[in-house]
């Protein structure tokens, strides 16, 4: 009985954890580039990277399936119906949720402060690492929480490219769907209520974090 819900929970946690780490590594430099860019292509890049925010997950999942599937350009990687395929999907799906808060935090750093640092002799890399990242750490932290929570709850993309393989791709949301189909309401209850509580806790944490920011 316990295995029914423990396995998807563990899988979801692993997926969310790994995806969040990858997302942070990707999004911190990307957000910095977007925040600093004066290029006329910047709005287009920004729109493209925000697409997952508005697209139905099934649309995203469908294109990913085509790209990663047996006839797609990434077929040799064997990502479809695998855990690492889910990671790829989650990273793309949650990207705007991580990118946006970090970019916002970087944009909140006054331009004059960065100019001042440059005049003191700090080069672009040093301004990024010694100034921008520490000043945006709150934004980066909330982005990580948001990305983690969002990945925990994803469903559409996972179902499209991962299917429903126990221990490999059956994450919480898929397990709930599966349990309901089998009329196993007990498991569905445990998982749903767990995710509900978890999500609520995350949002409380985020708002506490934001409140601290205002008070300082």
């Amino acid at each position, binding site marked *: 009985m316990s295995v029914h819900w423990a396995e998807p929970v563990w899988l979801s946690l692993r997926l969310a954890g790994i995806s969040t780490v990858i997302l942070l590594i990707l999004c911190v430099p990307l957000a910095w580039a977007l925040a600093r860019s004066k290029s006329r292509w910047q709005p287009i890049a920004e729109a493209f990277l925000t697409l997952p925010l508005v697209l139905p997950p099934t649309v995203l999942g469908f294109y990913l399936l085509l790209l990663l599937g047996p006839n797609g350009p990434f077929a040799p990687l064997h990502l479809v119906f695998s855990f690492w395929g889910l990671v790829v999907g989650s990273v793309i799906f949650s990207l705007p949720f991580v990118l946006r808060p970090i970019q916002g935090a970087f944009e909140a750093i006054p331009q004059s402060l960065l100019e001042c640092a*440059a*005049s003191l002799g700090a080069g672009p890399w040093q301004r990024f690492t010694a100034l921008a990242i520490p000043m945006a750490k709150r934004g980066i932290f909330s982005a990580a929480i948001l990305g983690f929570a969002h990945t925990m709850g994803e469903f559409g993309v996972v179902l499209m490219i991962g299917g429903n393989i126990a221990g490999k791709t059956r994450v919480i949301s898929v397990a709930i769907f599966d349990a309901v189909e089998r009329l196993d309401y007990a498991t569905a209850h445990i998982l749903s209520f767990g995710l509900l509580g978890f999500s609520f806790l995350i949002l409380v944490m985020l708002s506490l974090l934001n409140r601290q920011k205002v008070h300082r």
Partner: protein
Amino acid sequence: MKVALEQTKGVFHLKADAAWPDKSMTVIAGPSGAGKTSFLRGLLGLDQGRGKVEFDNMLWQGEGVFIPVHQRRMAWVSQHDDVFSHLTVRENLAFAMRFAAPGGLNMQALTSLFMLDPVLDQNAGALSGGQKQRLILARALLSNPRLLALDEPFGALDAEARHDLLALLHDYCAARALPIVFVSHDFETLTRLANFMIYMKNGQVVEQGPLNDCLLNPQLPYRYREDACVVLRASANGYDGQGRLNILALGDALFQVPGAPLPPGIKVNLRLRAGDISLSRSRHQDSSVLNILPAKIVKIEHANTKGPLAPGLVNTTLDLAGAQVLARITKKSAQALDLAQGDEVYAQIKASALHSA
């Protein structure tokens, strides 16, 4: 420094050429909207326009060259309170030292000079306005720059705090021959800090020259101001211990200025306000005025419809020991004394009205 810049920002067009001695303290002055800050940002490389910038035998910009800001060793102090608010005062200063060119700068000497010792471990974001300004200046100097660049320095400070900080900065930079280039609207700031002026209007440099020439230039507004003044370089030439007066020499004229003794031979700025100078035909023996010096009238300007000089007043330009000095007197007195160009007179300058800085 040689600068020729051209830049268009929306409807504003900057096309400015100027040159000034590398080691000078240069003010960029002019009315609002003249493009002073744009010019300064352009020559510092904070904005990239077309043109050429040369400083201290280095090409900063031009002929396919553009040295990035962080390699220019130019410390920039903007109008914003640019403290790193996530760091303590000490960490702010350490940040500048991390990238500073070697030059034996001592953090402790600067923190005590700028009165930052009591707040060293405080968060920089929690400082008062005056403390932030002192931190920003100390941090800029700790980066061991070749040039200090300021945009409207100390605008947010009250008169007394501004005065003290100006004197501190002036003495520090003068002692180390560290050049300054700054933008300022404030007449006191520019007369206390600058010795060279670039005057801008509508995106162009219209006048440039040594400060005193500009303060006297009839094309510029300064000589018509209510608080018009000239700034002369005098050297300390003795001390009257009983009267607590410094004797300052300007050519063969000697001024007596109250204050603590200055080291003999040191050069100081002597600010003479036009309103503090009166004229007489003979040398009064029974006056409380200490400084009575022979001078020759070079020019008499009456208030006219064009000039901003208040009606009833007269601007007289004097030759005093070879230097040009302004005296502001009433039209009535000028007529009573029958003053004319070329007349020999005595300039009476109240010693309490002298400023040496």
